[in-house]
C-alpha cells in the first residue's frame, strides 16, 4: 500500500468519482446487491483494462481483502494479483453498513461474485458483437476476451462498449464451482508482506504533509467532570499548538508526536476532575444485573400448549463478566477539515454510519463528510475506533487546513472502549424417560450489544461537549440474528421449548458489540447445559448431541470434529475432553469443537492442550483465511473464557492496561490446534469469523468438568475459580 498522502487520495478520488447509487427494492438479489444493484458499484474497468473491485466492507485482519479479490478474479478469469481493491469509503464504495457479524462473505463477496459474473457476461456479449461470434463461444480469461480462433480483445477495449452501470440481473450465470481455479485455493494473504516488513499498512502509519499530533485527556473514571485545568502553562510549552477544551473534552495539539505526549501528561497533572458514575462492587455485579429493569421478549416458543411431559427436571444458571476487545493497537484516526469538507481516515467498522454521526455532531451536511477506512489493529467489534474518529473530527474542525492525528493511549483504550456486557442465563430442562430432552426453558438477561454510530451521541466525546449529544436509548437487535439473544435458540430438536430474552435497558458500564455478541454467552450456556443433561442421562456428550440434531450439515461437523479428535479415547489423569457445537446465529457457519485440557489441581490452572474444530462455512473461498479465523477465534475465546474479566470497583473500571487485564500469552497456547473445513462447493458463503467464540467457552467448561470433576458456570474460569471449585 502506498502511503496515504492527501495527494494519492485525491488522485484516487479523481479516478473513481463517486456515483449516486439508486436503490430499487429488489429482494430477489443476493448479498448486498439490493443496496447497490449496479455492476459498477462493485467492479470497474479502466481504459487500460485495470480492474478495480469495490467493497463497502473493511479489512479488519480477517483477510477479507484476499477473499474478495479471489471471488472477483475467479468470475473474471483474472490473476488475483492484477486486481485493485478499494474498501469502505463513503465516496467510492457501496454502503454495506458495518463490517461485522461475520457478514462480509455473505454480503459483499456474494454481491461482488454476481457483479463480476454479470460483467463477464456483458463483456462476452460486447466482444461477440465485435468479433461476430456467439458470446458463449468466448472465454473471458487472462485480462482478455478470447475467441476459439485465437483472437483476443483486451478487457479495456471491450469495456468501452459495455454499459457497466447496468443492474446485476437476478439470473446471472455464475462460474461452475467444479471448474474453480482461484476460489477454494489458499491464496497467500495479500496484505501480509507489508505488515511483516514495515510497509505502510495502518491508519497509524499515515503521515500527511502538515499533519499535527493530538492527544486527548480523559477523566480518570467514567462520569467525572472537569472542574479545573491549567491549560495556559501547557499551551505555552514548546511545540504545542494549542490546548483545546469543549466541555469535558480536553485535548492538546502539537507539531511533533512526543511533544503531544509530554504535553498531555503535563495537562493531566493540572487537571481536576470530580464525580463519576458508580458501579456495583464486583461481588454485587450479578445481583445488581438481576435487579435491573428489563424488557422481556419470548423469542421462541414451541409445543408449550401440550402438557408438561414427565421426567427429571434439571436447572442451571450461567454468568459472564464484562470483557473487553483489548486491541493491541490503541485506536487512532486522522481527520482534515478544509473549511467546508471533512475527511476522516479511520479503522472503525462502519464508514457510512460513522459519517452520519460525524455530520450530526459537527452540524455538517453528510455530503460534506467523507470517511475512508484504513486498517488498524484488530478490533473484534465496537472498540475505541469510532470515538477516535470523532475526536479527530472535532479537533480538525478546530484547526482547519491541517490534518490532525489522534492516537489514544493504552490506558484510554482499556478504560473507555465499550465492553462486552455482563450477562446471565437460566436454563431448565426436563429429561424424558427416553433420555431425551422433553422440555426446554431458557432465558438470557443481557444489556444491549449495539451502541455504535450512526448517532452522534454514540461518540464518546460528543457526550462530553459543552452542548452534549445524549447517548440514544439502547436497542435490542431483532431476531433472527439477535443481540444478547443471539444463538439463544438451540439448533437441537426440542419438542417443547420456550426461550426468553430479558433486555436490560441500562447497565453501569459502557457496552457494545464484542465479537459474536450474545452468542458467546448463549452457546457457552446451552452447550454447557447440554453436557449437564447428557451427564444426567448417562449419555456420551457427542452421542447426546447427535440424538437431538437433524440438520445434516450440523451432524457432519459434529461427527468430523469428534472423529478427528479421537473422541472417547481415554486420557491421562488430570486431563479431560470437552465438546461443543453451534451454528452461528443459526444461519451462518457451523462449528463443532473438541478440546483437551489439563487441570492443575493445586493451582486451578487450566491449560488447553489441543483442539480440533470442524467448520462448514459453505463454499470455501480461501481455506487458510477461514482456518486462521477459526484458530484466532478459538485462541481469543480461550483467553476470554479462562482469564478475562474487566476489573472494577465501586468507582468504575480498574482494568487500565495489560497488568490489570491479563490475556493469554504464548505459554497458554495449545500444542496443537486443527481446523477441518467441510467445503460446500456452489453453496452460499457463510460467515466464519465468529463461529468459534461460543463453542470454545463451552468446550473448555465441559473439558474441565471431565478433567477435574467440577462444573464451572461462570466465565472467565480463572485459576482462582477453578481452584475454589476443586477444593483442596
Amino acid at each position: 500500500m502506498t502511503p496515504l498522502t492527501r495527494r494519492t487520495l485525491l488522485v484516487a478520488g479523481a479516478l473513481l468519482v463517486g456515483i449516486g447509487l439508486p436503490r430499487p427494492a429488489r429482494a430477489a438479489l443476493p448479498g448486498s446487491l439490493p443496496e447497490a444493484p449496479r455492476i459498477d458499484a462493485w467492479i470497474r474497468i479502466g481504459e487500460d483494462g485495470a480492474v478495480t473491485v469495490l467493497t463497502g466492507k473493511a479489512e479488519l485482519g480477517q483477510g477479507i481483502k484476499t477473499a474478495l479479490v479471489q471471488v472477483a478474479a475467479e468470475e473474471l478469469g483474472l490473476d488475483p494479483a492484477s486486481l485493485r481493491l478499494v474498501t469502505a469509503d463513503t465516496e467510492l464504495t457501496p454502503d454495506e453498513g458495518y463490517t461485522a457479524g461475520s457478514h462480509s462473505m455473505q454480503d459483499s463477496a456474494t454481491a461482488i461474485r454476481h457483479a463480476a459474473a454479470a460483467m463477464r457476461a456483458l463483456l462476452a456479449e460486447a466482444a461477440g458483437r465485435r468479433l461476430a461470434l456467439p458470446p458463449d463461444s468466448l472465454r473471458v480469461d487472462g485480462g482478455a476476451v478470447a475467441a476459439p480462433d485465437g483472437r483476443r480483445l483486451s478487457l479495456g477495449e471491450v469495456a468501452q462498449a459495455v454499459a457497466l452501470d447496468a443492474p446485476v440481473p437476478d439470473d446471472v450465470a455464475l462460474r461452475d464451482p467444479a471448474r474453480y481455479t482461484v476460489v477454494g485455493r489458499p491464496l497467500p494473504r495479500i496484505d501480509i508482506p507489508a505488515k511483516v516488513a514495515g510497509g505502510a499498512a495502518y491508519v497509524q502509519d499515515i503521515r500527511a504533509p502538515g499533519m499535527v499530533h493530538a492527544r486527548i485527556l480523559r477523566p480518570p473514571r467514567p462520569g467525572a467532570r472537569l472542574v479545573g485545568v491549567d491549560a495556559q502553562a501547557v499551551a505555552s510549552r514548546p511545540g504545542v499548538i494549542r490546548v483545546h477544551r469543549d466541555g469535558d473534552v480536553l485535548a492538546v495539539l502539537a507539531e511533533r508526536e512526543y511533544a503531544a505526549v509530554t504535553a498531555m501528561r503535563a495537562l493531566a497533572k493540572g487537571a481536576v476532575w470530580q464525580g463519576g458514575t458508580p458501579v456495583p462492587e464486583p461481588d454485587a455485579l450479578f445481583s445488581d444485573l438481576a435487579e435491573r429493569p428489563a424488557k422481556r421478549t419470548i423469542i421462541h416458543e414451541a409445543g408449550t400448549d401440550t402438557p408438561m411431559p414427565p421426567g427429571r427436571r434439571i436447572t442451571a444458571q450461567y454468568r459472564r463478566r464484562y470483557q473487553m476487545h483489548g486491541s493491541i493497537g490503541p485506536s487512532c484516526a486522522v481527520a482534515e477539515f478544509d473549511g467546508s469538507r471533512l475527511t476522516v481516515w479511520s479503522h472503525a467498522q462502519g464508514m457510512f454510519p460513522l459519517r452520519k454521526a460525524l455530520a450530526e455532531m459537527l452540524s455538517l451536511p453528510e455530503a460534506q463528510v467523507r470517511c475512508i477506512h484504513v486498517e488498524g489493529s484488530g478490533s473484534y467489534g465496537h472498540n475505541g475506533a469510532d470515538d477516535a474518529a470523532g475526536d479527530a473530527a472535532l479537533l480538525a474542525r478546530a484547526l482547519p487546513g491541517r490534518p490532525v492525528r489522534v492516537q489514544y493511549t493504552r490506558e484510554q483504550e482499556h478504560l473507555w472502549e465499550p465492553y462486552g456486557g455482563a450477562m446471565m442465563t437460566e436454563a431448565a430442562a426436563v429429561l424424558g424417560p427416553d433420555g431425551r430432552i422433553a422440555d426446554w426453558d431458557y432465558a438470557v438477561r443481557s444489556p444491549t450489544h449495539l451502541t455504535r454510530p450512526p448517532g452522534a451521541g454514540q461518540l464518546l466525546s460528543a457526550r462530553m461537549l459543552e452542548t452534549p449529544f445524549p447517548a440514544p436509548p439502547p436497542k435490542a437487535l431483532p431476531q433472527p440474528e439477535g443481540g444478547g439473544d443471539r444463538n439463544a435458540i438451540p439448533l437441537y430438536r426440542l419438542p417443547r421449548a420456550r426461550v426468553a430474552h430479558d433486555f436490560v435497558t441500562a447497565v453501569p458500564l459502557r457496552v457494545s458489540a464484542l465479537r459474536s455478541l450474545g452468542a458467546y454467552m448463549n452457546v457457552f450456556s446451552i452447550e454447557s447445559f447440554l453436557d449437564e443433561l447428557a451427564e444426567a442421562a448417562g449419555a456420551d456428550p457427542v452421542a447426546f448431541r447427535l440424538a437431538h440434531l437433524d440438520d445434516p450439515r450440523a451432524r457432519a461437523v459434529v461427527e468430523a470434529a469428534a472423529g478427528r479428535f479421537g473422541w472417547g479415547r481415554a486420557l491421562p489423569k488430570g486431563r479431560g475432553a470437552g465438546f461443543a457445537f453451534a451454528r452461528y446465529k443459526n444461519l451462518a457457519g457451523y462449528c463443532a469443537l473438541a478440546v483437551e485440557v489439563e487441570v492443575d489441581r493445586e493451582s486451578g490452572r487450566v491449560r488447553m492442550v489441543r483442539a480440533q474444530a470442524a467448520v462448514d462455512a459453505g463454499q470455501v473461498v480461501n481455506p487458510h483465511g477461514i482456518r486462521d479465523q477459526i484458530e484466532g477465534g478459538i485462541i481469543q475465546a480461550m483467553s476470554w473464557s479462562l482469564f478475562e474479566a474487566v476489573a472494577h470497583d465501586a468507582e468504575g473500571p480498574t482494568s487500565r492496561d495489560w497488568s490489570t487485564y491479563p490475556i493469554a500469552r504464548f505459554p497458554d497456547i495449545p500444542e496443537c490446534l486443527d481446523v477441518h473445513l467441510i467445503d460446500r462447493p456452489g453453496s452460499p458463503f457463510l460467515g466464519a469469523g465468529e463461529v468459534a467464540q461460543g463453542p470454545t467457552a463451552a468446550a473448555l467448561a465441559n473439558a474441565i468438568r471431565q478433567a477435574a470433576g467440577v462444573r464451572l458456570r461462570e466465565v472467565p474460569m480463572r485459576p482462582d475459580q477453578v481452584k475454589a471449585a476443586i477444593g483442596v
Partner: protein
Amino acid sequence: MPTLTVNGRTQTVSAGPETPLLYVLREELGLNGAKFGCGLGQCGACTVEVEGQAILSCVTPVGVLEGRPVTTVEGLGSPENPGPLQAAFIAENAAQCGYCIAGMVMRAHALLRSVPHPSEAEIRHALRFNLCRCGTHMRILAAVRRAAGPEPATTGATP
C-alpha cells in the same frame, strides 16, 4: 542531538535524548515497523533489536543508544524482498490484523540469533511477553519454526 544507527544508517536526530526510540523511528525516520501498542513496556508491539537483543523501543530513550546499532523490521527486508524470517511469516500467513507482528518478528529474530534452532518451549518462552489479540499464535509459532528449520542432525547426542 543524539546520533542513531538504524538498519545500518547513521544519522543525527533532532529529538531530545529523552525521547523514546519508538517516536523517533516512526516520526523522524518514517519507519512503520515498530508499533505503538501500549507505550508502557507491556505488549512488545514496539520491539526492535539493539546489539542483537530485543528491546522495547517505547521505553528506550534514544540517548542511551549512541553508538549502538538498532535494527527494525525494515532492516530484515522489504515487502517486495522479505528476509528469510519475514518470508516464513508470509508463507505461514502469520498475521491477522498484523499489528503485533513486526514486534513478534523482531523478538523471534533476536531469539534465532542466540539460539539458531530453538525448541518449541524456547520459542514460546522467548515470545511470552509479546501479546497478540487476534490469536495468530499458532501461525507465528509455525513461522518461527519454519525459519529456524530442523535441528541439524550433526549435533549428536543431546546434552
